[in-house]
């Protein structure tokens, strides 16, 4: 089985090379058969990776410890779900996973474009294959997943207990899907440059891929944050760790990109900017994975130094050179004939939005690679921590939030100031009332006050805009309000999906702002004693010690929770010891804690069982984290909105095909 897998990976290498080289030659020579054969070769690569993946999954499920990878990440007693998801738990498997997803998306792209974009497709195939080739090289030479153990151990090392968490089954794949999906818009954009196809066909073709990528980057980042919150147990969900930043930067530029392409679609402007931005975003997806795997930036997430980093570094340089060359040589042809009509126009506001998002991405990049830069310039490695990121990103975030409220209401080309401001009379009134209300409820500090106020403003503009749409439709289509709402959303998925996403962003910011009021306390208490924090009282009842199996010792503490004097429930934080087996089967202890979280929309009560002491007293650390609930709710809403925005629309499809039918 493993030999089949290994051989598949080797074969894939050859087919990927074929699919990269042949379509270019075929296009130059005018031989469509060559191009078609390259498309088939690409699908064959996907098929070979499926084969390799199946072999790996079988090995993981059956506990085939002849493989180093299976030994490293599973053991006999591991739940089967985690045995299978170990596929992407480690470096080697995750590279195969990336290749697999890319092959899958490539196959879909081929199917989607079998009757169109025929001038672009040879180069789309070639660029996607070049990326696939990178991963083929890695999976064959640098990080072979079927590498054998020097001897056969009796049991596996086991999966790190912190990864044995449902969130961790989904976080890596969703993020990888987000990264991989962006290869498609990049490939189409560069192909358009190569074939001197300067219209916006590449944008219209890849719009859904872009938003699909954005959707998964959003979910992936949030899942990671949620995992950190629930599993790592330090009380927070984002630490500005380099690897977190690595997946955040492409999200920022992808957000900028999906907005700026609208300008090209509507006004045929910003063409150079869009191809630059698509290349930057793609480069950031590679850069992100390069940071994680090269050891360049010290991060507790790092995989460790291997040759993998070198491959990614070289590919990254290649991407930058390739894109820069294309953009510079095509720049004069890309120059738009249209100009900016007014600063008070949607085009201008989108450009400001882009500037802010790119500024944010730059700030995060700067902070992340600062150690490398400072060493180059000053010979001294200096690092910047969360205070830097918070200081820079909070004002930027608030500005972005404000733009989210202001921009959708500006008309294309030009808004007269008076008409524009009329839109905001009601929202401003609501915001004013809202601001006074929260001021009287104790929010007096400028930062959270500003943040909540802007949230109310943006939220009300969106809601009023939607209501306006419903009323208008109800009148003209003579429908009742509920029917009007459904039809309005369903027939304008793109626009109303966007509104929903923006609403999600508002909730998200509400959740973020709560962090300003985080409080914590820690105390060592004996059974019967209490911890008091804010209006909560936690009474320590007892602890339970169990040993469910050979590799797990569980220590669970039970505390009674009372809020404002009333019993609310119990929390049961744990302090466990997992045992992993080393090569000789000896057990190595790994303490972990399972945090207990009592969630309400208002705040999270977060309890960490720090230790059980010799005198039977226990040390607890308790956090009150306000509004965290809304971070996750905001995320769900953003996800839902983007799904609506990319949902197939039969009317749109008819219009698209009518305009772009090609031989």
């Amino acid at each position, binding site marked *: 089985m493993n030999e089949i897998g290994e051989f598949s990976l080797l074969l894939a290498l050859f087919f990927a090379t074929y699919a990269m080289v042949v379509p270019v030659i075929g296009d130059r020579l005018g031989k469509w058969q060559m191009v078609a054969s390259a498309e088939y070769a690409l699908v064959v690569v996907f098929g070979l990776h499926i084969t390799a993946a199946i072999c790996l999954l079988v090995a993981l499920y059956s506990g085939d410890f002849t493989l180093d990878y299976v030994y490293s990440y599973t053991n006999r007693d591991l739940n089967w779900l985690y045995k299978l998801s170990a596929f992407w738990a480690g470096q080697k498997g995750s590279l195969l996973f990336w290749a697999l997803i890319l092959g899958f998306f490539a196959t879909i792209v081929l199917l989607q474009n079998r009757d169109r974009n025929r001038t672009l497709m040879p180069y789309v195939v070639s660029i996607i294959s070049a990326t696939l080739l990178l991963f083929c090289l890695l999976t064959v030479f640098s990080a072979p997943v079927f590498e054998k153990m020097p001897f056969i151990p009796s049991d596996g090392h086991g999966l790190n207990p912190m*990864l044995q968490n449902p969130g961790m089954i989904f976080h890596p794949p969703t993020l990888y899907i987000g990264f991989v999906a962006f290869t498609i818009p990049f490939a189409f954009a560069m192909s358009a440059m190569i074939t001197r196809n300067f219209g916006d066909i590449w944008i219209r073709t890849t719009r859904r891929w872009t938003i699909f990528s954005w959707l998964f980057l959003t979910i992936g980042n949030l899942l990671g944050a949620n995992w950190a919150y629930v599993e*790592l147990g330090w009380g927070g969900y984002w630490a500005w760790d380099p*690897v977190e930043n690595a997946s955040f930067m492409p999200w920022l530029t992808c957000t900028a990109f999906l907005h700026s392409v609208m300008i090209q679609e509507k006004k045929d402007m910003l063409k150079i900017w869009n191809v630059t931005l698509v290349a930057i975003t793609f480069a950031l997806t590679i850069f992100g994975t390069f940071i994680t795997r090269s050891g360049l930036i010290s991060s*507790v997430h790092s995989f460790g130094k291997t040759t993998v980093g070198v491959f990614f570094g070289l590919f990254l340089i290649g991407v930058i050179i390739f894109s820069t060359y294309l953009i510079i040589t095509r720049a004069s042809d890309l120059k738009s004939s249209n100009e900016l009509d007014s600063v008070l126009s949607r085009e201008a506001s989108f*450009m400001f939005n882009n500037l802010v998002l790119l500024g944010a991405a730059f700030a995060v990049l700067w902070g992340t690679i*600062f150690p490398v830069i400072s060493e180059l310039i000053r010979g001294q490695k200096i690092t*910047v921590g969360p205070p830097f990121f918070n200081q820079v990103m909070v004002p930027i975030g608030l500005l972005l939030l404000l733009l989210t409220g202001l921009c959708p209401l500006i008309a294309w080309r030009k808004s007269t100031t008076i008409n524009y401001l009329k839109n905001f009379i009601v929202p401003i009134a609501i915001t004013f009332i809202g601001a006074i209300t929260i001021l009287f409820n104790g929010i007096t500090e400028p930062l959270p006050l500003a943040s909540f106020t802007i949230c109310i403003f943006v939220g009300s503009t969106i809601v009023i805009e939607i209501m306006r749409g419903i009323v208008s439709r109800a009148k003209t289509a003579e429908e009742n309000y509920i029917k009007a709402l459904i039809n309005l959303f369903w027939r304008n998925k793109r626009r109303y999906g966007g509104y929903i996403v923006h609403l999600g962003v508002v909730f998200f910011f509400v959740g973020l702002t709560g962090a300003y009021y985080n409080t914590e306390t820690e105390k060592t208490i004996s059974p019967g004693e209490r911890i008091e924090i804010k209006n909560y009282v936690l009474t320590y009842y007892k602890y339970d010690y169990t040993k469910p199996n050979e590799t797990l010792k569980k220590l669970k503490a039970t505390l009674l929770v009372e809020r404002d004097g009333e019993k609310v429930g119990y929390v049961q934080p744990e302090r466990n010891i997992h045992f992993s087996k080393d090569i000789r089967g000896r057990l190595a202890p790994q303490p972990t804690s399972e945090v207990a979280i009592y969630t309400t929309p208002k705040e999270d009560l977060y309890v960490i069982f720090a230790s059980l002491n010799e005198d039977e007293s226990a040390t607890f650390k308790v956090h009150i984290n306000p509004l965290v609930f809304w971070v996750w709710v905001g995320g769900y809403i953003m996800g839902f909105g983007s799904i609506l925005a990319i949902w197939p629309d039969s009317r749109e499809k008819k219009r698209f095909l009518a305009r772009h039918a090609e031989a």
Partner: protein
Amino acid sequence: MTITSKSKRLTRAQKKFYVGASVLVVAIGYLIFTGVQVSSSYYYTVSEVVSMGNKVQGASLRLEGKVSPGSIQADHGNLNLEFDIFDDSEKSMPVVYKGIIPDLFQENLDVVVEGTVGQDGKFHADRLLTSCPSKYEAAAQDTSPN
């Protein structure tokens, strides 16, 4: 960005846009510049800190190294941790950390500490970051207060 007009002169709209854009760029640049001042922490190796002694006292530093075997003194009840950190040069330095001891903390583990060298010659860590004992993508453990 393609907003240039046909003639070489900028239109009023374009001028206004560039002014706004410049303000934005300068503002962000300023935030980044001051942000770096507020938050820099110098990377040093253990041997460098040991040899520099008093010179680095008081400055915010970041040390990477491993936990010395046999040096761990963990007082979970009082949330106090003391251990020695060493690096390839075999030199080691005592570290004092107040807070919840990270789950993965053990001998020979790669750790990163941020803090200052105190007058007692010990490294007083504000932050303690542990890495995973094995090589895969996981645990950033930051259990330091705030």
